[in-house]
Every structure is written in C-alpha cells, then in structure tokens.
C-alpha cells in the first residue's frame, strides 16, 4: 500500500513538469495547427539559460525562469516571422510544419551543440536532491516545487485565454482564422503572440527541467515522443487536457515501472500514444473529428 501511494506521488510529481513541457506544445498546435517537434529542443535552450548562471555564480535556477521565458518568447517571435508566417495559408500547413519543426529541432540541436558541446548538464540546487518525508512516504522537493510552479503558470494562461481581449482573439483565431481576420483581428500578430507565448512556456519549462533531468543538445529526441503522447492523450490543442494527460500518464508510467519493470514504464507512453490515436484520436478532451 505504501509502495502504491509512493509510486503515485512520484508519478504525479513528475506529471507537473511534463504538463508545463507539454502545454506550450498544445497551445501552439491549438492556435496555429503547428505540431512543434522542435519544442523539446527549445525547452533545452531554456534549460541552458538557467544552467549557466547557476554554474558561474550559483544563481537559483527558478529565478531564471522569467528570463528564460522572455528569451524564448523573443526567439519565438523571430522564428514565427521568418519561418512560419509565410506558410500560414498553405493547405497542407500542418503536415508541412511537422517537417519544418523537425528540421528546426536539428538546427537548434546543432547550434546548442556548437556553443555548449554535447556534455551533459544539470543544475544542483539543494532541493533538487531533497525530499519531505511523511512516515514511510517521501515527496521529492524539486519535483514538487516544479509542479506547483507549472500549475500556477498554466492556470494563469488559462485565465488569460478565457477573459482577456487578446485571449478572445487567440481563441477566435484557433477556431476560424479567416473569420477572425474579417472581424479585425490581425491574425498574423495573434499567431506571433501565441507562438511567442508557447515558446515562453517552453523557456519556463526549461528552467524547471534544468534541476530535474540532466540535458544535452541531442537529448531532445528522447523527450519529443513522451510530450507528444501526453498532448495527444489530452486532445491536441486542449491545454487542460494536456495537464490531465501529463498527470495521468506519468502516474501510470510510474506504476508500470514499479510493478512491471523500468523497460515497460517508458513503453507506457508510446503504447498510450498509439492506442489513443487509434481508439480516440481526438484525445480525452479534444474536439470530435469532422464527419462527412
């Protein structure tokens, strides 16, 4: 019983981090139909932004979170202008962008590798290797803090989308790009802003990831399918879905890892992705696919 509870706690604590990593991916898909395979490599940039100050002058990685978010948002704005804007009206946009972002991931990897080498990095604030113990059960501090921050950021985003004027514009653009344009929404700017927000989330996630997983430029390939699986489970484009998907999957993976073996815990994500796509392609919270 203790083992079961402990496993669930570990799974859920990891889920918070995955949720933030996945929510940017989900937002970008929702608004712009871009399946951003480069997302994990951009998270990596955020992680480096948190890493160097820690390494050089022991600056708390969580303080670097806003900095990482802002830097990534700027990168997002530039990328959108240079790369994604011109493609926005093409019919096969989604498929094109999958390939485009795939190539982008390679470019980012190459740049990070050139700048920082492929040496593995990790920040080590004290809480990263400490835990709260409650009798037999422990809650790792690093994961707990990261999850709490994730949830706060995601909630703020959800409120912003629901109530702000820009939030309206983003939602409208998500649903019907042309109509939004006709009603006075500068869809390109909305695209740019939501892309920047999505990447800001990646930057924030990067700062948190920096003390949870070790990272190096080519590591992002290992993250992408995991992130995809939770985004797909939650329903592509639904941020709430992504969060629930993240918690659900990482809890299940932890259970599988404990009771069936570590090999199969990783497989959980892949199988889940596969099964969800086939049984309920719209995910838990996604819209129903168009009929006829």
């Amino acid at each position, binding site marked *: 019983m203790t083992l079961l509870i402990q496993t669930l706690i570990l799974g859920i604590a990891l889920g918070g981090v995955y949720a933030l990593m996945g929510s940017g991916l989900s937002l970008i898909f929702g608004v712009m139909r871009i399946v951003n395979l480069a997302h994990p490599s951009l998270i990596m940039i955020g992680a480096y932004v948190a890493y160097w100050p820690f390494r050089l002058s022991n600056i708390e990685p969580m303080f670097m979170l806003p900095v990482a978010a802002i830097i990534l948002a700027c990168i997002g704005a530039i990328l959108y202008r240079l790369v994604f804007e011109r493609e926005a009206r093409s019919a096969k946009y989604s498929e094109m962008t999958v390939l485009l972002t795939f190539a982008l991931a390679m470019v980012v990897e190459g740049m990070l590798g050139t700048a920082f080498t492929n040496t593995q990095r990790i920040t080590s604030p004290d809480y990263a290797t400490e835990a709260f113990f409650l009798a037999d059960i422990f809650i790792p501090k690093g994961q707990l803090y990261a999850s709490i921050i994730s949830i706060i950021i995601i909630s703020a985003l959800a409120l912003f989308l629901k109530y702000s004027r820009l939030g309206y514009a983003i939602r409208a653009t998500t649903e019907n790009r042309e109509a939004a*344009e006709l009603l*006075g929404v500068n869809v390109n700017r909305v695209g740019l802003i939501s892309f920047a927000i999505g990447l800001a989330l990646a930057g924030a996630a990067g700062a948190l990831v920096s003390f949870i997983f070790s990272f190096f430029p080519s590591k992002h390939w290992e993250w992408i399918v995991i992130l995809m699986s939770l985004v797909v489970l939650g329903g592509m484009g639904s941020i709430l879905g992504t969060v629930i998907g993240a918690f659900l999957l990482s809890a299940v993976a932890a259970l599988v890892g404990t009771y069936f073996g570590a090999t199969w815990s990783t497989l959980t994500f892949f199988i889940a992705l596969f099964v969800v796509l086939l049984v309920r392609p719209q995910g838990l919270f996604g819209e129903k696919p168009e009929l006829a």
Partner: protein
Amino acid sequence: MSKLLEATGVVAGYGDGPAILNGADLSVHPGKVHCIIGPNGAGKSTLLKAIVGMLKVREGDVRYKGESLKGLRPDQILRKGICFVPQERALFPKMTVRENLRMGGYSITDDSYLNNRIGEIEEQFPILKERHSQHAGTLSGGQQQILSMARTMILKPEIVMLDEPSLGLAPKIVREVFEVMQIMAKEGITIILVEQNALMGLKYSDWGVVLDLGRSLFDGPAQEILEDPRIQELYLGGRKDKP
C-alpha cells in the same frame, strides 16, 4: 451621385493562379443596396474579397472616400468601416453566441460601449438574446446567417458586403435573411450583395451590377436591370447560352 466606394479596373485572382477578375469596376452609392449578379466564375465573390484585402489587387485601384484601400490588411479595412460576411458564414462554432457578438466588436476597445452595443443588437434580434449562451455551432443555418449579419452591425459600419446570404437556406429563411438586410439598410448601412438568385436579389436592391467575363458589363438601377431583355436572356434564365 457621389461614390462612397469605387473600384476601377481591378485585376485579381487566387494565389499564383490566373486572373479571375480582368478589370472589374464597381461604384457604390451611399445608403443604397447594391446587388451584383452574373454567371458562375464571373468573379463576384472574388471582387468582394479583393475589396476587403483578402486577395491581392494586382492591377487597378479600390478607393474608399477618396482613399486607396490597396495593400491594406482585412483588419485595417474593417476599421475603416467595411464589413464582409463571407459565403461560409465565418462563425466561431465553439464560442457562445454572445462571445461571437463580442468578437464582432473586437476592434472596439471600450468595454462598456461594446457591452451596450451587444445589448442593443440582442434587443433587435431576440433570437440571439434567447440563445446567448449556446455554442454558435449548434444554431440552425438561418440563425447562423442572422448572427453573422447582426455581428457586423456592432461596429456600426459604413458598408456591409454579403456574399450569397441565401445560400443553402429554406425559402422561408431566405425571406427572413433579406428582411434582416433591410433592417440594416434602414440603419443607413450601405450594402453590397452578391446573389445567385438574381431575381430575388434585385428585388430587394436599389442598384444592380452585372459581372461577366471577369469585368463589369452593366450597371444601373435594379429595376432597369430587371427589365432589360438582354439581362433576362443572359442571366435570369430566359435563354440558353448553348445550343
């Protein structure tokens, strides 16, 4: 007569494709209902899209109150007071009716004024008030058309362009839609209507324009156009254009 909007020699087409419009002209008279008719592929919808900036005007010019609209984005043109309701009704199906109205007033930054306008529109169209929290996607075709027309009125625009508002609607609803159009016209809004059902369209209009071969062939008071025998033969189903 003074021209509110004037398109001269417009050449436009989709993407890199051939030009659909080859020098189309259009003169718009303030406060009147204009009906553009013509055979399929004549470029009626293309002309509207070119005016609101959804398509690039390759040659020619579009002037509104003496100012060129060429090269402006749709949202900029909208702010000048020209609204466009496309064929496919352009609603946000997963947003509520009220949120859709709110989006109609997206370019209004004053919240209390916007809420007032939404209130006024809902008074004018009770069906929208009744269903304000329903998702727009669940409305019937006619209600959707009414919503998308009413939505444009929030901005009190100068010109509203309607692209085949009667498309796919039951006869009874078609009549309702044209009545909504008349309400708009009574508020002083200038209307440009593209209608395949030319008889009906002209009946509700003050001015008629015939577009064919990618340019404007005839232009005159709706009544005159309706009575012109050539028009009847060519466009109103009086004569076959093939042996």
